[in-house]
Protein backbone atom coordinates (compact mmCIF):
# COMPACT_ATOMS: atom_id res chain seq x y z
CA UNK A 1 0.00 0.00 0.00
CA UNK A 2 1.31 3.44 -0.95
CA UNK A 3 1.05 5.95 1.87
CA UNK A 4 0.33 9.67 1.41
CA UNK A 5 3.97 10.56 2.13
CA UNK A 6 5.23 7.99 -0.35
CA UNK A 7 2.76 9.20 -2.93
CA UNK A 8 3.89 12.81 -2.39
CA UNK A 9 7.52 11.76 -2.70
CA UNK A 10 6.82 9.84 -5.89
CA UNK A 11 4.88 12.73 -7.35
CA UNK A 12 7.63 15.20 -6.45
CA UNK A 13 10.28 12.86 -7.87
CA UNK A 14 8.45 12.49 -11.18
CA UNK A 15 8.09 16.26 -11.56
CA UNK A 16 11.72 16.81 -10.60
CA UNK A 17 12.95 14.23 -13.11
CA UNK A 18 10.75 15.50 -15.94
CA UNK A 19 11.93 19.04 -15.18
CA UNK A 20 15.55 18.14 -15.86
CA UNK A 21 14.98 15.41 -18.44
CA UNK A 22 16.02 17.58 -21.44
CA UNK A 23 19.21 18.46 -19.53
CA UNK A 24 19.93 14.85 -18.63
CA UNK A 25 19.37 13.72 -22.20
CA UNK A 26 21.68 16.47 -23.48
CA UNK A 27 24.40 15.53 -21.00
CA UNK A 28 24.06 11.84 -21.75
CA UNK A 29 24.18 12.46 -25.51
CA UNK A 30 27.46 14.31 -25.19
CA UNK A 31 28.91 11.81 -22.72
CA UNK A 32 28.01 8.68 -24.67
CA UNK A 33 28.06 10.22 -28.16
CA UNK A 34 25.21 7.89 -29.00
CA UNK A 35 21.45 8.48 -28.83
CA UNK A 36 20.47 4.96 -27.77
CA UNK A 37 23.20 4.66 -25.15
CA UNK A 38 22.22 8.11 -23.89
CA UNK A 39 18.63 7.09 -23.23
CA UNK A 40 19.76 3.90 -21.52
CA UNK A 41 22.10 5.93 -19.34
CA UNK A 42 19.37 8.40 -18.38
CA UNK A 43 16.93 5.60 -17.51
CA UNK A 44 19.59 3.91 -15.38
CA UNK A 45 20.38 7.18 -13.62
CA UNK A 46 16.69 7.81 -12.89
CA UNK A 47 16.35 4.32 -11.41
CA UNK A 48 19.42 4.85 -9.22
CA UNK A 49 18.20 8.27 -8.22
CA UNK A 50 14.90 6.83 -7.00
CA UNK A 51 16.63 4.15 -4.97
CA UNK A 52 19.08 6.68 -3.57
CA UNK A 53 16.51 9.36 -2.85
CA UNK A 54 16.87 9.07 0.95
CA UNK A 55 20.44 10.33 0.57
CA UNK A 56 19.21 13.60 -0.94
CA UNK A 57 18.92 15.82 2.11
CA UNK A 58 18.07 19.04 0.30
CA UNK A 59 15.63 18.78 -2.58
CA UNK A 60 16.81 22.15 -3.89
CA UNK A 61 20.02 20.35 -4.82
CA UNK A 62 18.27 17.74 -6.92
CA UNK A 63 19.75 18.94 -10.23
CA UNK A 64 23.40 18.66 -9.16
CA UNK A 65 22.64 15.45 -7.33
CA UNK A 66 21.10 13.64 -10.30
CA UNK A 67 23.86 14.91 -12.59
CA UNK A 68 26.30 13.32 -10.18
CA UNK A 69 24.41 10.03 -10.42
CA UNK A 70 24.32 10.24 -14.21
CA UNK A 71 28.06 10.95 -14.38
CA UNK A 72 28.89 8.22 -11.88
CA UNK A 73 26.86 5.73 -13.84
CA UNK A 74 28.52 6.73 -17.10
CA UNK A 75 31.99 6.44 -15.59
CA UNK A 76 31.17 3.12 -13.91
CA UNK A 77 30.09 1.69 -17.25
CA UNK A 78 33.21 2.98 -18.97
CA UNK A 79 35.76 2.30 -16.26
CA UNK A 80 36.06 -1.37 -16.92
CA UNK A 81 36.95 -1.28 -20.62
CA UNK A 82 39.54 1.46 -20.43
CA UNK A 83 41.20 4.03 -18.27
CA UNK A 84 42.41 7.29 -19.71
CA UNK A 85 45.32 9.17 -18.29
CA UNK A 86 44.97 12.78 -17.24
CA UNK A 87 48.16 13.49 -19.12
CA UNK A 88 48.28 13.53 -22.88
CA UNK A 89 51.95 14.12 -23.73
CA UNK A 90 51.28 15.71 -27.10
CA UNK A 91 48.59 18.01 -25.72
CA UNK A 92 50.47 19.68 -22.92
CA UNK A 93 50.65 23.11 -24.50
CA UNK A 94 47.52 25.20 -24.32
CA UNK A 95 45.74 25.89 -27.58
CA UNK A 96 43.70 29.05 -27.90
CA UNK A 97 41.59 30.04 -30.89
CA UNK A 98 41.75 33.59 -29.65
CA UNK A 99 45.52 33.60 -29.95
CA UNK A 100 45.27 32.21 -33.45
CA UNK A 101 42.90 34.93 -34.60
CA UNK A 102 43.37 37.99 -32.45
CA UNK A 103 44.54 41.19 -34.08
CA UNK A 104 45.41 43.61 -31.30
CA UNK A 105 44.66 46.79 -33.17
CA UNK A 106 41.07 45.89 -33.97
CA UNK A 107 38.22 46.49 -31.55
CA UNK A 108 36.43 43.44 -30.18
CA UNK A 109 33.28 43.80 -32.26
CA UNK A 110 35.20 43.97 -35.54
CA UNK A 111 37.68 41.23 -34.73
CA UNK A 112 38.06 37.91 -36.55
CA UNK A 113 37.58 36.01 -33.29
CA UNK A 114 34.10 37.49 -32.93
CA UNK A 115 33.37 36.60 -36.54
CA UNK A 116 34.55 33.06 -35.85
CA UNK A 117 32.08 32.70 -32.97
CA UNK A 118 29.27 34.24 -35.01
CA UNK A 119 29.71 31.56 -37.66
CA UNK A 120 29.76 28.62 -35.27
CA UNK A 121 26.77 26.31 -35.42
CA UNK A 122 25.57 23.99 -32.71
CA UNK A 123 26.66 21.11 -34.93
CA UNK A 124 30.21 22.45 -35.01
CA UNK A 125 30.31 22.49 -31.21
CA UNK A 126 28.84 18.97 -30.99
CA UNK A 127 31.49 17.58 -33.33
CA UNK A 128 34.28 19.31 -31.44
CA UNK A 129 33.08 18.14 -28.02
CA UNK A 130 32.73 14.59 -29.28
CA UNK A 131 36.40 14.63 -30.28
CA UNK A 132 37.64 15.49 -26.80
CA UNK A 133 38.89 12.40 -24.88
CA UNK A 134 36.47 11.16 -22.25
CA UNK A 135 38.33 12.22 -19.11
CA UNK A 136 38.43 15.83 -20.23
CA UNK A 137 35.08 15.77 -22.06
CA UNK A 138 33.24 14.94 -18.86
CA UNK A 139 34.68 18.01 -17.11
CA UNK A 140 33.94 20.34 -20.03
CA UNK A 141 30.38 19.06 -20.44
CA UNK A 142 29.57 19.43 -16.75
CA UNK A 143 31.16 22.88 -16.44
CA UNK A 144 30.47 24.59 -19.73
CA UNK A 145 27.36 22.88 -21.05
CA UNK A 146 25.59 22.34 -17.73
CA UNK A 147 27.12 24.99 -15.51
CA UNK A 148 28.07 22.79 -12.57
CA UNK A 149 30.46 24.27 -10.01
CA UNK A 150 33.95 22.85 -9.57
CA UNK A 151 32.84 21.26 -6.30
CA UNK A 152 29.81 19.64 -7.96
CA UNK A 153 32.05 18.27 -10.72
CA UNK A 154 34.57 17.01 -8.17
CA UNK A 155 31.75 15.22 -6.32
CA UNK A 156 30.31 13.83 -9.54
CA UNK A 157 33.60 12.48 -10.86
CA UNK A 158 35.16 11.60 -7.52
CA UNK A 159 38.35 13.63 -7.87
CA UNK A 160 39.82 16.63 -5.98
CA UNK A 161 38.95 20.15 -7.12
CA UNK A 162 42.52 20.67 -8.31
CA UNK A 163 42.07 17.78 -10.73
CA UNK A 164 38.83 19.33 -11.96
CA UNK A 165 40.73 22.57 -12.68
CA UNK A 166 43.46 20.81 -14.63
CA UNK A 167 41.03 18.60 -16.56
CA UNK A 168 38.96 21.65 -17.46
CA UNK A 169 42.02 23.55 -18.66
CA UNK A 170 43.17 20.65 -20.81
CA UNK A 171 39.65 19.83 -21.95
CA UNK A 172 39.00 23.38 -23.07
CA UNK A 173 42.31 23.51 -24.87
CA UNK A 174 41.51 20.24 -26.66
CA UNK A 175 38.01 21.48 -27.44
CA UNK A 176 39.35 24.67 -29.00
CA UNK A 177 41.88 22.70 -30.99
CA UNK A 178 39.12 20.39 -32.26
CA UNK A 179 36.91 23.38 -33.06
CA UNK A 180 39.71 25.10 -34.92
CA UNK A 181 40.48 21.97 -36.92
CA UNK A 182 36.80 21.38 -37.69
CA UNK A 183 36.31 25.01 -38.65
CA UNK A 184 39.23 24.83 -41.02
CA UNK A 185 37.88 21.63 -42.60
CA UNK A 186 34.38 23.11 -42.89
CA UNK A 187 35.60 26.45 -44.18
CA UNK A 188 34.19 28.27 -41.17
CA UNK A 189 37.43 29.77 -40.01
CA UNK A 190 37.90 33.34 -41.00
CA UNK A 191 41.51 34.52 -40.88
CA UNK A 192 44.11 35.90 -40.33
CA UNK A 193 46.88 33.48 -39.36
CA UNK A 194 46.73 30.46 -41.60
CA UNK A 195 48.36 28.09 -39.17
CA UNK A 196 47.90 24.38 -39.19
CA UNK A 197 47.26 22.52 -35.98
CA UNK A 198 50.01 20.04 -35.32
Amino acid at each position, binding site marked *: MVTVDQSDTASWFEQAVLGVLPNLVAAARRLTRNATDA*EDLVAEAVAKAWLGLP*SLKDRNRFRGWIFRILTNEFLAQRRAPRLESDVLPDEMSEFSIFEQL*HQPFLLWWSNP*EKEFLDKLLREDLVRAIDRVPETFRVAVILADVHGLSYQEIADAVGVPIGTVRSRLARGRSLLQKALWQHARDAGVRTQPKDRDVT
Partner: protein
Amino acid sequence: MTHSDAMNCEEALRLLAEFLDGELHGAEHAHVQHHLETCRSCYSRSEFERRLKAQLGQMGREDVRPSFEQHIRQLITQFTASPAKPSSDA
Protein backbone atom coordinates in the same frame (compact mmCIF):
# COMPACT_ATOMS: atom_id res chain seq x y z
CA MET B 1 42.30 49.64 -5.70
CA THR B 2 45.87 50.71 -5.06
CA HIS B 3 48.64 50.47 -7.60
CA SER B 4 50.26 47.64 -5.64
CA ASP B 5 47.04 45.63 -6.00
CA ALA B 6 47.15 45.86 -9.78
CA MET B 7 47.21 42.56 -11.59
CA ASN B 8 49.28 41.99 -14.71
CA CYS B 9 48.06 40.26 -17.87
CA GLU B 10 49.74 36.96 -17.07
CA GLU B 11 48.04 36.71 -13.69
CA ALA B 12 44.70 37.83 -15.06
CA LEU B 13 44.77 35.25 -17.85
CA ARG B 14 45.81 32.54 -15.41
CA LEU B 15 42.69 33.25 -13.37
CA LEU B 16 40.38 34.03 -16.30
CA ALA B 17 38.75 30.60 -16.52
CA GLU B 18 37.93 30.55 -12.82
CA PHE B 19 36.67 34.13 -13.08
CA LEU B 20 34.31 33.24 -15.93
CA ASP B 21 33.24 30.06 -14.15
CA GLY B 22 32.16 32.07 -11.11
CA GLU B 23 34.76 30.36 -8.95
CA LEU B 24 36.66 33.49 -7.90
CA HIS B 25 35.59 35.53 -4.90
CA GLY B 26 36.69 38.53 -2.89
CA ALA B 27 39.91 40.28 -3.74
CA GLU B 28 40.93 37.92 -6.55
CA HIS B 29 37.62 38.46 -8.31
CA ALA B 30 37.89 42.22 -7.89
CA HIS B 31 41.46 42.28 -9.20
CA VAL B 32 40.61 40.31 -12.33
CA GLN B 33 37.52 42.43 -12.91
CA HIS B 34 39.54 45.62 -12.57
CA HIS B 35 42.22 44.33 -14.93
CA LEU B 36 39.62 43.45 -17.57
CA GLU B 37 38.18 46.94 -17.28
CA THR B 38 41.55 48.49 -17.98
CA CYS B 39 43.25 46.10 -20.44
CA ARG B 40 41.81 45.95 -23.94
CA SER B 41 43.67 42.78 -24.94
CA CYS B 42 42.60 40.77 -21.87
CA TYR B 43 39.07 42.13 -22.18
CA SER B 44 38.92 40.84 -25.76
CA ARG B 45 40.21 37.45 -24.64
CA SER B 46 37.67 37.42 -21.84
CA GLU B 47 34.81 38.28 -24.20
CA PHE B 48 35.85 35.51 -26.57
CA GLU B 49 35.99 32.89 -23.83
CA ARG B 50 32.74 34.13 -22.26
CA ARG B 51 30.87 33.95 -25.55
CA LEU B 52 32.23 30.51 -26.40
CA LYS B 53 31.18 29.29 -22.96
CA ALA B 54 27.73 30.84 -23.47
CA GLN B 55 27.37 29.03 -26.80
CA LEU B 56 28.29 25.76 -25.14
CA GLY B 57 25.75 26.52 -22.43
CA GLN B 58 23.03 26.65 -25.04
CA MET B 59 23.61 22.95 -25.68
CA GLY B 60 22.46 22.04 -22.18
CA ARG B 61 19.00 20.94 -23.26
CA GLU B 62 17.89 18.55 -25.98
CA ASP B 63 14.47 17.62 -27.19
CA VAL B 64 13.23 14.47 -25.51
CA ARG B 65 11.49 11.92 -27.70
CA PRO B 66 7.88 11.66 -26.48
CA SER B 67 8.19 7.87 -26.32
CA PHE B 68 11.26 8.17 -24.10
CA GLU B 69 9.52 10.61 -21.78
CA GLN B 70 6.65 8.13 -21.58
CA HIS B 71 9.15 5.38 -20.81
CA ILE B 72 10.55 7.42 -17.92
CA ARG B 73 7.05 8.11 -16.59
CA GLN B 74 6.26 4.40 -16.68
CA LEU B 75 9.55 3.62 -14.97
CA ILE B 76 8.70 5.99 -12.13
CA THR B 77 5.20 4.55 -11.86
CA GLN B 78 6.75 1.11 -11.48
CA PHE B 79 9.05 2.41 -8.75
CA THR B 80 6.18 3.80 -6.76
CA ALA B 81 4.38 0.48 -6.94
CA SER B 82 7.41 -1.57 -5.99
CA PRO B 83 8.26 -2.54 -2.41
CA ALA B 84 11.75 -1.02 -2.74
CA LYS B 85 10.57 2.55 -2.20
CA PRO B 86 12.89 5.12 -0.70
CA SER B 87 11.94 6.50 2.69
CA SER B 88 9.61 9.47 2.47
CA ASP B 89 11.79 11.64 4.71
CA ALA B 90 14.44 12.00 1.99
